[in-house]
């Protein structure tokens, strides 16, 4: 009986216990270890290292690759968020009809989500290298005749296309669910009142989509900021470091260049930026809720 009372009083803490422990052990401890190594010149190979104070952090400031990588990661993330939301809503609206064949399309549009990024990289490399140039030659479009992910000017769009190709599948499903939660009579009433398509969207559908929107926003933000697999498989960060994301940069420094201490300094800076952005984001969204 005592035990039951205890449970009923402390349930809230018991419920969060396991995730808290897991995060401390498997996330914060390694982060702390990384923080420690960011003040050393450790290569990551042998047990020997020396403390070099803030040198790693000072070096970041003059690191061209780091600046380029921050720039790419941020623009890529922004484009991904916009793309996933806009395309997601557009397609979801098309799929939210009671017409013939729509259920087939609903299944088909989810397909990209199931491909692993390694497969995706392999296939799209070939598409960009042979497929598109062939189409370009047939239609005599000069722009398409080159390899779009090998050219410094166009690689951003090529990578973004592939990322969206896979990335919109989940948002479509989520937005579709949001749209289907709108009671039919509301939409019918709007039609009778003579609301046009645009009015219906802004005044009826959008409010219903807000929860889905915040969900998709966070998911896209996450996949942009932590992008690794797809870029690694598709461009390896090239050409000329144009598509090196922060995750890839840390990986390259730590594992390919044997500059583990320095890689950790970048990780720490990244972590601080993320904390600041998260705090701002929470503050802002609180203001909206109030």
């Amino acid at each position, binding site marked *: 009986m005592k035990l*039951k009372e205890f*449970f*009923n009083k402390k*349930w*809230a803490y018991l*419920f*969060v216990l396991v*995730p*808290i422990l*897991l*995060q401390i*052990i*498997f996330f914060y401890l*390694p*982060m702390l*270890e*990384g923080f420690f190594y960011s003040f050393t010149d450790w290569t990551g190979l042998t047990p020997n290292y020396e403390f070099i104070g803030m040198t790693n952090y000072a070096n970041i400031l003059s690191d061209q690759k780091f600046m380029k990588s921050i720039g790419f990661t941020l623009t890529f993330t922004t484009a991904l968020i916009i793309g996933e939301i806009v395309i997601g809503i557009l*397609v979801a609206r*098309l799929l939210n009809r009671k017409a013939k*064949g729509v259920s087939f*399309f*609903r*299944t*088909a*549009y989810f*397909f*990209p989500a*199931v*491909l*692993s990024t390694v*497969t*995706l990289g392999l*296939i799209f490399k070939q*598409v960009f290298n042979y*497929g598109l140039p*062939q189409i370009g030659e047939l239609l005599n479009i000069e722009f398409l005749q080159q390899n779009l992910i090998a050219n410094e000017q166009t690689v951003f769009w090529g990578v973004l296309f592939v990322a969206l*190709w896979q990335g919109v599948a*989940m948002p479509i*499903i989520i937005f579709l*669910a949001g749209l*289907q*939660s709108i009671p039919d009579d509301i939409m019918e009433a709007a039609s009778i009142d003579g609301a046009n398509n645009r009015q219906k969207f802004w005044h009826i559908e959008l409010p219903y989509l807000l929860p889905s929107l915040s969900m998709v926003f*966070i*998911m896209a*933000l*996450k996949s942009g*900021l*932590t992008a*690794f697999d797809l870029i690694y498989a598709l461009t390896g960060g090239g050409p000329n470091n144009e598509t090196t*994301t*922060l*995750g*890839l940069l840390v*990986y390259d420094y*730590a594992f390919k260049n044997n500059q583990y201490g320095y890689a950790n300094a970048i*990780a720490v800076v990244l*972590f601080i930026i*993320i904390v600041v*952005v998260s705090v701002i984001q*929470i503050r802002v969204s609180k203001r909206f809720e109030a």
Partner: protein
Amino acid sequence: MEQKKTNILHYVILGIGFCLIFIPLYLTVMSSFKETGQITGDFFGLPNPFTFDNFQRLMNDGIGQYFMNSTVISIAAITLITLFVPMAAFSIARNISNNKAFALMYGFLTLGIFVPFQVIMIPITSMMTKFGLSNIPGLIILYLAYAVPQTLFLYVGYIKLAIPVELDEAAAIDGCGKFKMYFKIAFPLMKPMHATTLIINGLWIWNDFLLPLLILNKDDSNWTLPLFQYNYQGQYFSDFGPSFASYVVGISVILIVYLIFQKHIISGMTNGAVK
């Protein structure tokens, strides 16, 4: 008349989208019936000769074992995630507005969302070795740990919207303890969110390459399907035939699972009233 025109336009747009989606799928399936030499030399052509050797190779190389491993790992990890994360989310959603400690915990638990895994890759690998957890159970624990931030975020948002506090109060009046209330009432009500996180986490775990590589590299009988798939590719020579065949196997499984659950997923998500 106008309506008909827009309808046709919609079909055209959906059709173009479908082609964009279909082409890579088609290429994957075609490649799985080609010999490796033809995949390198003629990626877009039809299989010539048409061969089942790649699939035969997968059987000979013991794909069954890896398939089993992946299935066990995915199911176990998802079960654990569905057991622990909504629980914590429920507690946080209920207490976050009147208890500072829970607001802090929420921040603490979700901060990991945006941190690239590469950042903690080395410390985590050496830690798992020291704990003696470089094995399948260890990998499952890691999946549980790394699923927490995003999954928790999704559940907290959902509970706040879809499971009103009044339910708790009503349950309390009926003499229902918090535990019972959670498992009997709140947990089943979260079904749409279970479906959503199941897809998100399921796809991630089923296709993940890096974590299994770091944790399970010692004994190849422990490998997961992605490790097995990737093992056909070397720096100097890649055996693309069996690689593509193994992708087809991996994809088919998820598609079958998706087709079975599709109805539940979409209708589940909508029934749950994304209010």
